[in-house]
Every structure is written in C-alpha cells, then in structure tokens.
C-alpha cells in the first residue's frame, strides 16, 4: 500500500509538473524567469495575464471561438451519427462486421495528411474563415468513431423493447426519440465529450481554414503566439496563454472523466 502511494506520487508528478511549471512561469516577473532558482526582489506579477487579456483580439476570444467550433461539431456529428448507427445496428451480422472493420480502418488514418485536399475543398466552396463551416470536416473526421460507439450502444439494448414500442404504434422517429435515445444517453454523452475534445484541440485543419485573427481557435492562437514576436517578454506571456487555454479543459476532464474514459475504452474495445 505504501509503495503504491509512492508510485502514485511519481505518476502525478510526471503528469502535472510541466503544467505547474507553466503556472509558476505565468505569475513570474521577467527577472525571476531569468533566474528561477535564485533570490529576486520582485518575484510575482499579474502583468503576463493582463498583457494577454488586453491584446487585440483579447485571449478570451480564442476560447469563445473554440467553444463555438466544439459545440457545433459535436451537435452536427451526433445528429448524423445517431441515425447511421441505428441503421447499421439493424443490418445482417456479417455486413455489420464489414462496416465496422471499414470504420475502424478509417478512424486509424492519420487525418493530418488530409489537410491539403480539405483546404482545396474549403476554397472551392468558399467556406474558409467560417467557424461553423469547420464543423463539417470535424464531424466527418469524428464520424467513424461516433458511429462505432453509438452502434454498439444500440446493439446492447434488448430487442423486445423496440418491438413493444412498434406494437404500441410509435413510428421510427418516435421510437428513436422517446425510447431508444434516452436509453443510450450515456453512450451519447461520452461520444459527444470525445468529439468536443477533438474539435476543441484540432490544429492542422483550423490552421489552414482560418486566417482572420479574430476567428482563429485556441490551438491556432497558441501556435501563432509561439511563432510571433508580438509578446516581447520571454515566455511569461506565453505561459499565461497556455494556462488560460488549459483551464477549460481541466474542468472538462474533472467533471466528465467518467464519460471520457468510457468513450476512449469503448472505442478500443468495440472497435
């Protein structure tokens, strides 16, 4: 038991130390950043945060953009994936196996390599620089996993249930909306959270689709900050940007850890 506690401490140190170093740096003055382990007169400051929050556009704007992209992608994906998953759960077993294998293969694909063609599609359709348009590639990319997860949730439901609802005179839409979907809501929640995290964090496509400074999402903003000399102070402002960008995710992980973990593991098991 004692030994385990020690290992847990090591694990937590490994997972959290880089983050705490960011927090520490973000509250440090330039002098203390330069010499972190020696005595400095003015050690702490809020200037880094003030600088990032009063920049143009202010930092919260990126958080807002990412939230819009995250929510719209999650909504669109679930809207399309749920009926598809239902349909697949009804086909013959060997057909279903082929579809599953195909979806699994597609979801393994390193999607970064798609950026060039997606960029061309955005240009042809004229949907670059539109936050809501980003949800189209995002939901397409999350579709294989979402369908896999929801399909196995539908399959786990007892067969008689839908039959009984049909005899009661409920049509397909009513059965889905009032009988089946409430029952698979845990699976919908964990699928949704996983999609939200993906869309919130996605970088290569957001990078190539968005160019207007007030529209870029958080990951793109962070990369831009890293690549620019806009913040002349070394790293103090960077660090406060990474801390601000991490806070929403810390809350999401703490509140939804059960859903996230079940999403990840179901994806691996059912795939």
């Amino acid at each position, binding site marked *: *038991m004692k030994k*385990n*506690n020690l290992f*847990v401490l090591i*694990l*937590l140190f*490994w*997972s959290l130390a*880089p*983050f705490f*170093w*960011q927090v520490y*740096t973000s509250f440090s003055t330039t002098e203390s950043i*330069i010499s*972190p*382990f020696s005595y400095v007169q003015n050690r702490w400051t809020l200037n880094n945060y003030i600088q990032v929050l009063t920049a143009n556009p202010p930092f919260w704007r990126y958080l807002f953009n990412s939230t819009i992209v995250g929510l719209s992608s999650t909504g669109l994906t679930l809207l399309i994936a749920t*009926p598809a998953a239902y*349909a697949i759960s*009804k086909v013959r077993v060997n057909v279903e196996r082929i579809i599953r294998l195909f979806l699994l293969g*597609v979801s*393994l694909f*390193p999607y*970064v*390599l*798609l*950026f*060039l*063609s*997606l960029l*061309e599609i955005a240009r042809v359709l004229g949907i670059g620089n539109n936050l809501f348009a980003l949800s*189209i590639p995002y*939901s*397409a990319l999350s*579709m294989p996993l979402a369908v896999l997860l929801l399909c196995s949730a539908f399959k786990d439901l007892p067969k008689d249930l839908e039959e009984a609802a049909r005899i009661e005179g409920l049509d397909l839409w009513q059965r889905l909306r009032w009988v089946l979907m409430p029952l698979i809501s845990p699976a919908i929640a964990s699928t949704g959270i996983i999609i939200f995290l993906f869309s919130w*964090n996605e970088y*290569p496509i957001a990078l*190539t689709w968005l160019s207007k400074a007030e529209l870029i999402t*958080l*990951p*793109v903003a*962070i*990369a831009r900050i*890293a*690549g620019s000399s806009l913040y002349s102070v*070394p*790293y103090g402002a*960077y*660090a406060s*940007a*990474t801390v601000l*960008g*991490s806070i929403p995710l*810390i809350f999401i*992980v703490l509140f939804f*850890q059960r859903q*996230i*973990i079940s999403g*990840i*593991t179901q994806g691996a098991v059912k*795939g």
Partner: protein
Amino acid sequence: MTLLFLPAAILIFSVFAIPIIRYTWLSFHASSVLTRLEDIPNNGANWFRIFGDDRFWQDAYQTIRFTSISVTLEIFIAILIALLLDQKINNRGLVRALTLLPWALPTTIMALGWRWIFNTPYGPIEKIYSILGLGSLNILSNPDTAWLATIIADVWKTTPFIALILLAGLQTIPNELYEAFILEGGGKLNAFQQITLPMLQPYLIISLLFRTAQAFGVFDLIQVMTGGGPASSTESLGFYAYLNALRFLDFGYSATIILLTFIILIIFTLLVWLLTSRVNKLLKSEIL
C-alpha cells in the same frame, strides 16, 4: 433505412476518399505558383523528384525513428501505469482524471510548454544541469538531442490514453484466474507473463496500431516545439508536406509527399503487425 445512413456515408466519403483521389491526380501534375495553381500534367516529374529528394528520405527516417521509439516507450510506460491504477489506491477517480490531463490538452499548448521546459538558458532542465556544474545541454538547438526532446513530449501526452485502454483490459481479467494460478504455486511474475499479457493482447494490439498511425502523422508538436529544426532534424513527413503546400506553394509535390507517406505508413504498419505476431508466436511456444 439507407436514408438514415446516407449523410454519414457521404461525409466519410468526401473527407477520406476524395482527398486520396485528388492527391493521386495532383501527384501527376505540376500545380504551384509557377503554374498559377493550375494543374498541368508533368509526366510523373513529381515522382521522379521525390525519389531523389534527400530531404524527403531524411524526414522519412526521422518519422519512423520518432514513431517506433515513442510508441514503444508509450506502451511500456502505459502498462506500468495501468497496473498501478488497477491496484487499490486512494482517490482513484481523481488520480485517473489527473493522469488523463496531458492527453486532453491541445497539442500546441503542451508543445509550447515543453519548449519552455527545454529552453536554453532559462528552462528548468538547463538550469538544474548548469547548477550541478555540468555545463550546457542545449537540448533543442542540438540536432542530436532535439528529436529526443520531441519524443519525451509525445510520450508525456499520449501515454495516459494507452494506459486507460490497457486499464480497461486489465479490469476484464477475473481475479479468480490469478487466485487459481497462485494456488497452483505460480509466482507473481509468471502470472503477469501467462495471464495478464495474453489477456491484454487485443488491447495492446489496438493501441499499437492506433498510436503507430497517429505518431506517423505527427505535426502540431513538431511545428510548435521545434519548427522542424534544428537543421530539419526533427522534421516529420507531415510537416514537410505542409511546408511544400503552404510555404513553397507547390501543391503537386505536396500531394506526392502525402501519397508516398501514406504508402510508407501502410508498409510500416504491416511490418509492425508481422513483428508482433512473430513475437507472439515465440512467447506462446515458450509457454508451451
């Protein structure tokens, strides 16, 4: 019924199949600033060029090196973490959530964080090194060490993901199996070899495949942490394709890079698959 499936099928097709078709087309055309981004057939010049392009093969070597080392490390560390989280520990839920945090953060955020940690001369690692009187490490500006730093950052970020998959696998193994094994006089290490590993195998294989494919496409981490440098030593194939498309505005060549990367990935994955099944057979024959 088909109507229910159609929108999903169209989306998946347009995002995965159209690009492959388009890349194949582009790779046989010149499409760059010089052609005003119009596609002009060039008799496979892109393909001749890529086989003589040292930078491409250097990046292919770097991508394979990055993938094999980081995925191997991740799997080993993830097994240890999963075994630990499977024990009775205090506040298991909270520990699990905190372990998961690195995976949930955007890659660009953690890449920037690690760039700062490895910074010379202000980063903590460099500072500790020089306080100990060992001189200067210069991790990120030395081509021999910068790629190791990117591996550490990647391991930090993705190990929790694998650990959770393996943990789910561990929890499917009934305790009675271990009890019976111990009763028959088996040791703990033997139990790990003969019960845990075989039962975990499907979970290990899916994590291995998934992580191999994703690590092969590494992009965000490299762009933010090192920018591909120093001297292109950390440049991945995905990043090279990006540079060709958006910096050098050579879409035809970029598409060729992407296609060949894809082909190399398939070959590499097949090799990994063969290797694991070979190792598997060896292990099994040893047990029997």
